[in-house]
């Protein structure tokens, strides 16, 4: 298993390299530079800035310098936030993004699985239809629409929760962003769970178990749950990735200081180092998460384990 994990990690290095290279050159092809803005700078000052950040060197040399620095673990300076380098900013945003992402992940998985089980057990009855409707809405209503509505209802009209910000980091500040981020994934997970559980409950060995007179709860918990979880687990890897990238919007609307926000800001501001840093960071994170999911999958499914 360890060798497998290592191999997986190693095989992502070329991908990472290609992605970095592509991003690096795409960014430089982009019109507009980091020092263009509402106030144009005199050419002398622009030259000074370019020299300061090595931007006056030939592109290929800049690229080699960058790659060299990355290999040394140095992600370089940031243009928009000059008092912090790229690594410092990413590390400063990491706890927020991880807290938000993990909470949303756990919430989505638990709520999705429970809703899926409920849907399967009460198949084609009123609770199933109500859940189904709610889930469909979660699936089709975009999160940039849900967020302002929830802010308005729970933050202003009912005044139960803060409208935005991180505040003192207490749970109250997390509730709305986590719900908004998790909603579409609750929907997806519960759909997967419901479908898989219905199928398992119809399978022969469950019928056998039932004919032996085992209670329904016992059948579900002991026998049906684990196999029914397989499709859910295979969705968790992608879901973790979507939660991370989904945090871009949620962090913007709620004004949270996570990493997702940096990305768009950095791209718009031509903050080359910051864009590349964010991409590298996200890729590594997603690869690791996918790996964890794979290992979990292997643990659940003996067939994969023995392969």
């Amino acid at each position, binding site marked *: 298993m360890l060798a497998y994990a290592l191999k997986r990690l190693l095989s992502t290095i070329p991908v990472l390299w290609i992605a970095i290279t592509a991003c690096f050159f795409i960014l430089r092809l982009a019109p507009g530079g980091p020092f263009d803005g509402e106030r144009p700078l005199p050419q002398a000052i622009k030259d000074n800035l370019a020299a300061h950040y090595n931007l006056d060197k030939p592109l290929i040399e800049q690229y080699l310098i960058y790659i060299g620095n990355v290999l040394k673990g140095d992600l370089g300076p940031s243009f928009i936030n000059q*008092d912090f380098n790229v690594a410092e900013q990413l590390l400063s945003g990491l706890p927020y993004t991880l807290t938000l992402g993990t909470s949303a992940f756990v919430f989505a998985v638990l709520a999705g699985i429970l809703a899926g089980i409920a849907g399967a057990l009460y198949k084609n009855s009123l609770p199933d239809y109500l859940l189904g409707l709610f889930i469909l809405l979660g699936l089709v209503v975009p999160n940039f629409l849900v967020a302002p509505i929830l802010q308005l209802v729970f933050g202003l009209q009912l005044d139960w929760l803060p*409208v935005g910000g991180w505040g003192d980091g207490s749970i109250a500040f997390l509730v709305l962003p986590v719900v908004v981020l998790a909603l579409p994934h609750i929907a997806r997970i519960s759909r997967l769970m419901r479908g898989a559980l219905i199928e398992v409950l119809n399978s022969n060995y469950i019928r056998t178990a039932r004919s032996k007179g085992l209670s329904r709860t016992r059948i579900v918990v002991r026998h049906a749950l684990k196999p029914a979880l397989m499709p859910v687990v295979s969705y968790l890897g992608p879901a973790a990735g979507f939660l991370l990238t989904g945090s871009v919007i949620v962090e913007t609307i709620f*004004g949270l200081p996570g990493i997702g926000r940096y990305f768009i800001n950095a791209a718009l501001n*031509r903050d080359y180092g910051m864009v590349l840093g964010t991409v590298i960071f996200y890729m590594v994170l997603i690869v690791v998460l996918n790996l964890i999911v794979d290992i979990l999958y292997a643990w659940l499914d003996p067939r994969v384990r023995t392969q």
Partner: protein
Amino acid sequence: MKIIQQAAACTLALMLYGAISATAWAATINIHNGADPTSLDPHKVSGDWENRIVGDIFEGLVTEDPNAEAIPGQAASWTVSDDGLVYTFTLRDGIQWTDGTPVTANDFVFAFQRLMDPATAASYAYLQYPIKNAEGINAGDITDIASLGAKAIDDTTLEITLEQPTPYFIGALTHYTAFPLPKHVVEEKGEEWVKIGNIATNGPYKPTEWVPGSHVTTVKNDGHYDAANITIDGAKFFVLEDESAALKRYRAGEFDILTDFPTDQYDWMQENLPGEARVAPFAGLYYYVVNNTKAPFDNPDVRKALSMSINREVIGPQILGTGEIPAYSWVPPGMANYGDPVEVDWKDMSYGDKVAMAKELLTGAGFNADNPLKLQLRYNTNENHKRIAIAIAAMWKPVGIEVELYNTETKVHYEELQNNIVDVGRAGWLADYNDADNFLNLLKSDIQYNYGRYSNSEFDALLNKANETTDLTARSELLREAEAIALNESASIPIYYYLSRNVVSPKVEGFVDNAFDIHRTRWLTLSE
């Protein structure tokens, strides 16, 4: 290893953050500040959101009063030589950095030299170009940095020599490019001097915490000479670029001041939060650049037709909803040493007559229904810019002008404006200092901000002559003459004069609307 240390430092900072926010501050003001600041280093910043923080924690020779007018700051007094070239400042007694070191004239000299040093790459250095040799040093033509016209006579006396008499120089010294720096800290820590923990400041507040993407916290500096009169104990400047979300948080009591608001909500706020939304004239001009070097826009009649057929009267009240004042002049009203600006001669015609005349002008230039004038109108991403562009395109349509709207993000927009590849493009200018020359310069030949490449030697000569004139009345006459020429040739299309938009909680007192939209925390008070 380095990353691990950073992670540890980061965790520590978070723990401190928790500890700090657990203790409630008696009077901490929460300010919605827009974008993330670039730096706390006055030489590296360029935006009004950065000015709000940097201007609270540092203080120059002169500073702004609640009306944003210059009053003595670190300097107790100054004298100006008769030829207007040499300023001699005497610093206050007992001023000190937050680490206890005295602020001396050398700190100012050091800061000015660093500002002009090409290696610093300070983006706003040009604002202090009136200082002798500044431009030469900054451009790398003069390598002896010590030749800069800023000298410390002794610890408390500073002498600044200018290139030419500059009536607005004292005003320019309120700008953050003129702030002193703690020479001892910068020399000891190098680039790291500006980090929380290293930084020493001399303003009414000192920074204590910065969570990138979230907020900067400042705390009152008890060593400041005016500390006894300052009632707000600290400020939190929040990063949040979504104005609608910011307004919601304001309504929930999470912010005390919003430094902008979505114009659509203005009516609603006047009804539901009476008196809290403030709109005030702002020394700035919103205008459309017309490419003077490209046919057919090199024809003044075509430019005039474009300008005349814009119904400016509906833009403020109807399109924006905050009542921006229509602009028929190039210099906004109320600039110092200027008087009333010159206005276009067709200002008072009815809109119907303007449209008729615009059509005639276009016909004269060879355009008609079969051969309509086609142009691309570019604007940078922003709800209001978009709305105005849509409205103006619709106003031009009946005159027989076909408009293609083209929206790009800010960086691209300005690069294209500078590269002169735009037919008609949106631009704006906020005064750097209180003088008409700051606006007229935008139309001078060979000036980088002259996006439309308007070029008229008579206009240039008048501006140059005005710069050498010390008599303020004669100077303003020259500037007005120049403005009349530019307007007559429709060098560019002024649209409206900016308004500042703030939302101020009734808990905050001492917030005075002013033409530069500068409101230092030291003048405010906060009640429960």
